[in-house]
């Protein structure tokens, strides 16, 4: 098994590539989702506040 991970001496390079790629993709997805959540929250609050201003 560990031999497989060593990848014939190229393990560091291969795993370095795959790991960084995975990291970037995960981070990008998380960032996109977080942005979406914050946008929905912020705009929702804004719209609610405007509504209460009009009615109240």
């Amino acid at each position, binding site marked *: 098994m560990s031999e497989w991970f060593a*990848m*014939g*001496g*190229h393990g560091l*390079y*291969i795993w*370095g*590539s*795959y790991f*960084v*790629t995975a990291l*970037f*993709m995960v981070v*990008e*997805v998380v960032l*996109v*989702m977080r*942005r*979406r959540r914050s*946008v*929905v929250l912020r*705009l*929702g609050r*804004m*719209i*609610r506040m405007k509504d209460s201003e009009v009615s109240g």
Partner: protein
Amino acid sequence: MFNLFKYSSPASFYPLAGRLAVGFGIASAILLVIGLYMSFFVAPTDYKQGEGYRIMFIHVPAAWMSMWIYVVMACFAAAGMIWNTRLSSMMASSLAPTGAMFTFIALWTGALWGKPMWGAWWVWDARLTSELILLFLYVGFMALESAIDDPRRAARASGLLALVGVINVPIIYYSVQWWNTLHQGSSIKVVDGGIESSMSEIMLWTLLVMTFACWFYAVAVSLSRVRSTILERESGTAWVKTLLKGEQA
């Protein structure tokens, strides 16, 4: 044709984008699992490079994506400038971060591949250099967009830049290639050629699967990014209001 125009309005595109993003996301995940399995367990060890060549299965898709996304982005920007459709410029700006990410990944994996193969992290080769410049073009696009406060102005300015950039991309590509062949022997090309000729059928298929996984990933991510942008820019309209009220409740 009629349908296309219907979906070019943000209000009707928003839900469609949501459904498409989920679809492409799932497809990308499935292809990614298959592709990773193939790249590590199915594809044979290369007779010349040993295991090291397995970096190819992300390097090459990332490199292809980096260039393809720029072209798509410029097309959206052009459509946005010509027909003044808001949605196009939003798509352009939401493609850019993903494109920049793939460019960086291509550079990173290339460097990690280069060390064992050429003994150097970096050489000033034509392909490498023009990829680096592509990263600068992406960063310039994003920097300009984020430097302008007003979103509509930002979209128009960065769209113009994307257009100018896309004229420049082939010029850069050929100039760098020519510049390089003038000075340096083609030692690197030989290695490349070696890989290509030795590429077995199964390697080619793995590469293809991984490429489509990356492509679908890019589509999914930029579609969900554009959804946030649509909400922000259309926050004054009635449909966003009703939509958000529904989501809060």
